[in-house]
């Protein structure tokens, strides 16, 4: 009786847990506002007749992103007539799940074209589109169609208009200070701002551009306050993007300055202030889509709205007397951009990259190096092209494996397993996802699999250079080294360092202590104290806990040599040089190979010769000339192979 009772209770519990979970799931399912009930939908009778639904993250009169597509629809209606083009919308769908439900709902209720007007809707679309092969989907702003033949992709080259605005702004400012108010440093906003800054700098590199991202799309008061701050800092010309900038426009207007707009024509809002606006005319692109559809092509193409195709137009405010030379320069710039003379971003397919790493992205060491590399890549290719996510602190190999598998399964093009401990997991996972590229570091082993890249750093090279310099700088002839666990990258660096010291002066004593721990800052500090007490006046070390050691050698007026990240900012009077990894050099090679259809199977080494490793000398420290010369000669020798590093 007792036993049955217990088993019964146990079974009930399990059931309850699972039903509780099952009941939870619908919470995700949003209460979709039924726009179809508000605006009666008629079954399309003629082939030309088209019903279109828009799903967008903000409000249709946001004066910015969403309004631009809404205006485009109105323009289309004007052109084709309201009888032919019929449209409904779901605005403020900032919850992606809700948007997904809305998209699915529209598709299911017979709309011909569903426009997902938000880059965040991509993965939802990817799931939904295959279920409705008859429906066309349009996804912006991006250029990725997921290879599906019923998805169109569209985006705006908003850097172009930004550039034109920048050129004009540079010519109009008297204070030589220009303010920029942005929302979140990503996507369309970043593209515009970057283009703007580039335009300013190309015109007058002396001008100071104050860029503030307020990390918010709606806080008008904060935008206004940002403008006030920038005006107080001297700005007399400003620009900004996203719906909250209306606050900023008001402030620059009060102060009699100029404003440059984007996304929508903002001249009406402040006729005496807005000089010009970059305006999107999505209808240009939507017309192409509609035409393709009428030919039976439901998707699979991507479009870019730019100055050349009229998807982007510069609207100059007639109320403002723009000086002739400024107007002329603007026209000249527009012409040049149309001819393809100004903008030059390398053309690659957009990539979704995921990083899995064992420590935190700001660990000042190993993980930070790959994170910084991704930022550098984004800088180069643009955030629309390189999209990346990360899972940090995955020190549990098991969890990392789950993360890697999950990323691969959810459509990422490339998954970077940034930890040598992830190897065997990768070996198992990679064969299941032949379309996905994997990169594994730091190692040189691809397991012979043609979708795994391997990468590692020849960290003994930088270690050797550091060692040569350290040997020349020590007066006590004792050098200290603090390491974590005697293996992998740390061991390689330390061995290279010791080799460099010994090659320069074999009489120098190198004290190497491995504390067998990556996080104990106090123990690293104490190790440094011990080595200093034993006579060390120059030190180096690797992994994130060395910050403790740097502090101690700094207190004692000695020198430090860094690795993995540029540590000069941390102790400007102590760090002589740092070996810095530039993984982006290697990642670029992988991306290039991938675009040619090679998904893996090669291994890369970041070294001094290929720029994957760079020696960063600290400008704050007066490095004696002969030391500097020796360092340069060593770097050169390693690059051209005249120096071979003897590792134990």
């Amino acid at each position, binding site marked *: 009786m*007792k036993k049955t009772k217990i088993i019964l209770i146990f079974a009930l519990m399990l059931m309850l847990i699972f039903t509780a979970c099952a009941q939870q799931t619908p919470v995700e399912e949003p209460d979709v506002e039924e726009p179809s009930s508000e605006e009666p939908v008629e079954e399309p009778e003629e082939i030309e007749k088209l019903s279109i639904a828009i799903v967008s993250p903000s409000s249709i009169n946001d004066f910015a992103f969403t309004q631009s597509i809404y205006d485009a629809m109105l323009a289309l209606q004007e052109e084709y007539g309201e009888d032919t083009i019929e449209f409904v919308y779901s605005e403020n769908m900032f919850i992606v799940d809700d948007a997904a439900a809305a998209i699915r709902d529209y598709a299911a209720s017979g709309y011909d074209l569903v426009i997902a007007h938000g880059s965040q809707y991509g993965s939802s679309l990817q799931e939904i589109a295959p279920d409705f092969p008859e429906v066309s989907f349009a996804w912006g702003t991006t250029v990725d169609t997921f290879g599906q033949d019923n998805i169109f992709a569209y985006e705006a080259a908003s850097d172009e208009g930004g550039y034109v605005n920048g050129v004009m702004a540079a010519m109009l400012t008297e204070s030589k200070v220009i303010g920029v108010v942005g929302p979140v440093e990503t996507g369309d906003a970043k593209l515009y701002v970057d283009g703007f800054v580039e335009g300013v700098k190309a015109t007058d590199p002396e001008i100071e551009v104050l860029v503030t991202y307020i990390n918010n799309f709606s806080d008008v008061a904060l935008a206004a306050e940002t403008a006030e701050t920038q005006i107080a800092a001297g700005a007399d010309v400003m620009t900004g993007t996203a719906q909250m900038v209306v606050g900023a426009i008001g402030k620059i207007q009060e102060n009699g300055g100029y404003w440059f707009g984007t996304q929508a024509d903002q001249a009406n809002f402040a006729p005496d202030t807005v000089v010009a606006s970059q305006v999107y005319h999505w209808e240009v692109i939507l017309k192409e889509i509609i035409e393709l559809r009428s030919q039976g092509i439901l998707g699979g193409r991507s479009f870019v709205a730019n100055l050349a195709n009229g998807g982007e137009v510069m609207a100059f405010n007639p109320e403002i007397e723009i000086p002739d030379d400024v107007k002329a320069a603007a026209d000249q710039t527009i012409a040049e951009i149309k001819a393809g003379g100004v903008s030059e971003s390398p053309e690659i397919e957009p990539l979704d990259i995921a990083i899995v790493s064992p420590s*935190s992205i700001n660990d000042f060491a190993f993980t930070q190096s790959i994170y910084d590399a991704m930022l550098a890549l984004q800088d180069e290719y643009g955030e629309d092209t390189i999209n990346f996510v990360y899972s940090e602190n995955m020190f*549990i*190999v098991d969890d990392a494996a789950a993360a890697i598998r999950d990323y691969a399964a959810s459509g990422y093009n490339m998954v970077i397993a940034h930890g040598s401990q992830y190897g065997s997991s990768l070996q198992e996972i990679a064969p299941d996802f032949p379309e996905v590229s994997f990169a594994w570091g730091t190692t040189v082993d691809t397991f012979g699999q043609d979708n795994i890249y391997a990468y590692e750093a020849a960290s003994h090279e930088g270690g050797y250079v550091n060692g040569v310099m350290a040997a020349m700088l020590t007066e006590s002839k004792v050098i200290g080294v603090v390491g974590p666990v005697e293996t992998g990258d740390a061991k390689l660096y330390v061995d290279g360092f010791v080799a460099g010291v010994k090659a320069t002066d074999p009489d120098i004593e190198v004290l190497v202590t491995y504390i067998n*721990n990556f996080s104990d800052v106090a123990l690293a500090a104490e190790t440094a104290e011990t080595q200093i007490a034993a006579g060390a006046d120059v030190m180096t070390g690797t992994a994130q806990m060395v910050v403790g050691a740097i502090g101690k050698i700094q207190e004692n007026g000695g020198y430090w040599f860094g690795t993995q990240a540029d540590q000069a900012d941390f102790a400007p009077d102590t760090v002589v040089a740092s070996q810095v990894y530039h993984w982006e050099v290697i990642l670029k090679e992988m991306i290039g190979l991938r675009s040619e259809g090679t998904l893996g199977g090669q291994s890369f080494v970041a070294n001094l010769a290929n720029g994957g490793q760079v020696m960063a000398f600290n400008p704050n420290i007066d490095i004696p000339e002969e030391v500097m010369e020796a360092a340069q000669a060593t770097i050169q020798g390693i690059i051209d192979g005249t120096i071979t590093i003897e590792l134990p």
Partner: protein
Amino acid sequence: MKSRLNAILDALLPLFATLAALLVGAIMLIILDVNPLVAYGALLNGAFGSSNALAETLVKATPLLLVGLGICIAYRGNVINIGGEGQMIVGAIVATWFGLRYTNMPGWLMITLAMMLGALAGAVWGGIPGVLKAYFNVNEILSTVMMNAIAVQLLNFVLTGPMIDPIQSEKASQIPQTARLEEAYRLPRLVPTRLHLGALIAVGLAILVYFLLWRTTLGYRIRSVGQNKFASRYAGIKVERYIIIALMLSGALAGLAGVTQVYGVNFRMITDGSTSGFTGRAGYNGIVAALFGSLHPIITIPASILFGALLVGANTMQRVTQVPSALITALNGLVVVFVVSSEIWRKKRQQKRLTIAIEDQEFDEFSNEIPGHSVEEAS
């Protein structure tokens, strides 16, 4: 009937407490500009959303359950074993060594022997603090904490030296890992997921531990020593022996958890210089799971699954929302605090019920099984 409902409510308490903790977590998510619904949707989806997710949850729950069972025994014997991390490591080292050393054995034989050896190693590693406590009055919290630190250095040593993968020892990178176990030695899996036989073994052991504690003399003595050392000694029980046995059993189960991690999940050992790199904090989280399960071996099964689901789902949540992973750690802590705090409601209702029960001259057997609230203690 009413008491059954009460028991169900009691058993579900950790679930409610977890939900309450997640509610507090929602505030943190909102501050970080993340929609909590999206986040928790991802959490649920990551833990239960597909057969693969469910399998991952169970894989995560397996070492928690094994360690947790050991904790049930130790707590019943009134010893606190926070040495699960070290015991897992040592058990895994010995079992891995054995599996790599002796090749070409039948798989079932190797797996059986490896498990026995791993459990034995864990028992020794747990037995040392047991001996020290029983005969030298060295507190087990101190010794188990220290033994964890010693075990991880042992791990670092064998993986960078004697047991390093021969392929790695030739390379410059020298990844600190052992070679992989041969295919035949791996625990059978429920293809195509990573769910392995270890999960089933753990559940079987849970039932075994239940019988051990309540149906054998050994179990009775462990519990009696745990409840009252002096009375037990007076009754002729060799108290020292049962303290050591409790810790050894606890260590053996943790050692076994280490073995299943190698033979069922990773097929090799690897170190990142800390304990958690190998154990995944299961040595600590197992304690939490056992407490979630009211220190009852059977209830620890769903408790481990719940906690495993939380850990697996939280990782998915991080991936989906891209919140710093630190938030997950903090949230994990909140759940533990909330669940352990919720115990008081159970306790209060229990006392109320007990009063009624005494009036009826009838004891509810189920409540009798829950520690800290047994009739002897409550009266």
